[in-house]
């Protein structure tokens, strides 16, 4: 990997062989290829193995609560819009505990990028099923195997009107990096579901399992503007799993629509207690 300004030398807490190791350079090169500097980027993460990512690079970091990476990203972006804001966490975090924030963030369409490290399992808490675990996947809690329908998150996101949806795979750093770049460039919320092996707790969806199934949409003349096609495609899972930009549509970002957000960043405007005087008349 060529060096980037985002490099930060520190030991990680990931397991040898974990997919997270290749997501990290993909994020760093994407940011650096976009010409961003560490202080111009904010990563908000939740809790889980994935959520540790920003600790292993140089950038502004708000590592908050499990399931809650998106709300702080929302707040930060609205007031300090010059930051490139990424919400990054695991599948349990973003699709499970934090599901409500995801669905409403899609509706809100603020210019943030959501990167989900989807290992189809709860890694940090030692291997329980996540919303994306496959039916039949057995764990110490799901002793008879998972019985609930596997979530296909991009299908759900599409149904809520998301304007940028992509899938990538931790086995392909250039592809992840490209997806992240495109996602950040997209105005409005963008969501990237990154398939990655958890070598410890997911013995079903292994590196090889993914490797042998994934294929690239862009290599197959995919038209990412066709919503209905994207809907069908988003559910493709099994022998073949599509990677790439599933759907892309420009729609106005929240920031473009809300009057008070026009002009200087909110945090740079002038505030004076004395201005409140203007309101006294209402009460007299």
């Amino acid at each position: 990997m060529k060096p980037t300004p985002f490099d930060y030398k520190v030991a990680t807490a990931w397991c040898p062989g974990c997919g997270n190791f290749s997501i990290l350079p993909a994020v760093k090169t994407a940011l650096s290829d976009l010409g961003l500097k560490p202080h111009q980027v904010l990563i908000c993460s939740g809790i889980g193995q994935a959520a540790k990512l920003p600790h292993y690079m140089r950038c502004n970091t708000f590592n908050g609560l499990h399931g809650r990476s998106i709300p702080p990203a929302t707040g930060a972006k609205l007031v300090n819009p010059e930051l490139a804001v990424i919400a990054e966490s695991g599948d349990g975090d973003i699709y499970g505990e934090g599901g409500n924030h995801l669905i409403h963030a899609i509706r809100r369409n603020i210019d943030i990028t959501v990167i989900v490290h989807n290992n189809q399992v709860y890694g940090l808490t030692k291997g329980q099923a996540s919303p994306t675990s496959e039916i039949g996947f057995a764990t110490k809690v799901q002793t008879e195997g998972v019985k609930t329908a596997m979530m296909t998150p991009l299908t759900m996101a599409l149904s809520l009107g998301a304007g940028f949806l992509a899938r990538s795979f931790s086995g392909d750093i250039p592809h992840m990096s490209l997806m992240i770049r495109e996602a950040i460039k997209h105005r409005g919320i963008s969501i990237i579901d990154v398939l990655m092996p958890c070598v410890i707790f997911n013995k079903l969806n292994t590196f090889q399992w993914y490797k042998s199934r994934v294929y690239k949409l862009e290599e197959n003349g995919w038209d990412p503007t066709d919503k209905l096609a994207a809907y069908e495609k988003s559910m493709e899972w099994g022998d073949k799993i599509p990677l790439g930009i599933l759907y892309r549509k420009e729609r106005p970002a929240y920031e473009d629509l809300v009057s008070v957000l026009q002009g200087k960043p909110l945090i740079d405007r002038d505030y004076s207690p004395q201005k409140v005087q203007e309101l006294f008349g209402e009460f007299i």
Partner: protein
Amino acid sequence: MDFSIKIGGQAGQGMQTIGAILSKIFSRGGYHIFSNQDYQSRIRGGHNFYQIRIAAAPVSAPDDQIDLLLALDDLSITEHEFELRNGGGIIYDGSKSKSAKEGSGRFNIPLEKLALTEGGKKVFVNSVASGAALGLLNYDISPLETLLYESFSKKKPEMLESNIKAARAGYRFAQDNYSQQFAHKFKPGPAVPRMVINGNEAIALGALAAGCNFFAAYPMTPSTSILVYLAGKQAQFNIMVEQAEDEIAALNMILGASYAGARAMTATSGGGFSLMVEALSLAGITETPAVIVLAQRPGPATGLPTRTEQGELLFVLHAGHGEFARAIFTPGSSEEAFYLTQKAFNLADKYQIPVLILTDQYLADIYRNIEPFDLSSLAIDRHLATEEDLKDVREYKRHQLTPSGISPRLIPGRTEHVVVTDSDEHTEDGHLTEDLDVRVKMVDKRSRKYQGLAGAVIPPVLDGPAETDLLLIGWGSTYGVIKEVTQKLNAEGKRVSQLHFPQLWPFPSERVVEIFKSATRKVIIENNSTGQLAWLLRAETGLTVDEKILKYDGRPFTVNYIRGALKL
């Protein structure tokens, strides 16, 4: 002079409109006013009322009795008739009223008919009724006309004329038919520019005066009016108001915004606050400033959504897992609500902590007309890292260990430094750590903030002689009613003092211990069923009180209730 009007009716009948109109009119006429509301958790029907007290001297509590009942439905008569003082009267609409009997002190005014004939629509009943009340009192009608002009000339000019016609009709009818029969009369004095403002509006203004530029919330009675008020000021005051998908998002959003440089606030009630508790703890460990307004209502759970209670002091004090510093403000009036909210932001920024403002439905909704806030000495103190702080810094450390416990705070993106923080225990530079020596240092650092916070605590307000036979102790919204009780008892020659707490955490122990020394009988008055301040007082000082006067029926205290309980 001390005159009370009660406007009663069903939800949706416009008691609030009439109440607001009359309050402003009498305020402009130089009177002191105090008004409170009682409403149910429904949008139409049921029984609500709005009570206005009009007095020559400042007043700070509702009266137990009334002089004029403006009954928009029958139930209002049966429910409140008995509250009338001798010489009081009832305005009602005989055409709509089945049970009301004519008679002395009964003023049958065809409110609806006048609304229809003069305005053409039932909505004009509000203006008819306001006019009628003024007519009965022989008050001048022009302040009402002015007010209607101000309200409608710009926003809904097509409604202006009908409103004025309706108001005049009500005025004339009352004056012509009944004004002789009603003993009470008063006239506007010289205009005084007082603000008729309730607790929630004062909080909203306080936030604006603090430069609050991000507010996220989820609607919940009785906090919603803060959300609504601020939403209306977005462009004018450069504040983004976001309705969050839930309360968890609301607090996490404002933490993100605050981290990113905003002055951020949220407001909610007990149920919503419960959902914020995890993020409160996040504010604690990430040292992110936040101002959180909790407008209490009776619990548990949904409880009584539109009533009042002070049941969450101890909850707020210990809310959040783990141990971390906070401050709790408990304003007792619109003035305190304003100044304390403004201060809350400075305190939150200085100590990088969550500051909680504990109010309740009663304070949220009571109106008093007060002197306009003095803005001259207010400042926005961000306490951000200075160039000096960063002079020799190669790698910025968001959580640098310092003697005060306060680390230099940078806004991400505004320097070349990166700002790193974490909900895990972390090193000085904000990265997660499992080094247990660092852990101890960080806990100690965060608790050291209490040294500064304790020094900055707003002392309890002692009103009355230090040497006292009876000390009446309260916090938050009971301030006004205890004040009136204290004044009355003193006027009767008793030696009574009031001790009011505008801030309950850090607890001002030293001062309390001192005050307790010279007081004989000590009584705590709280709108809850357990006596939470009494408990806190004992935990912090070992002191106990002689009695607790508690009320938990969802209604606020009244002067007579407290006097009765004091058995003096």
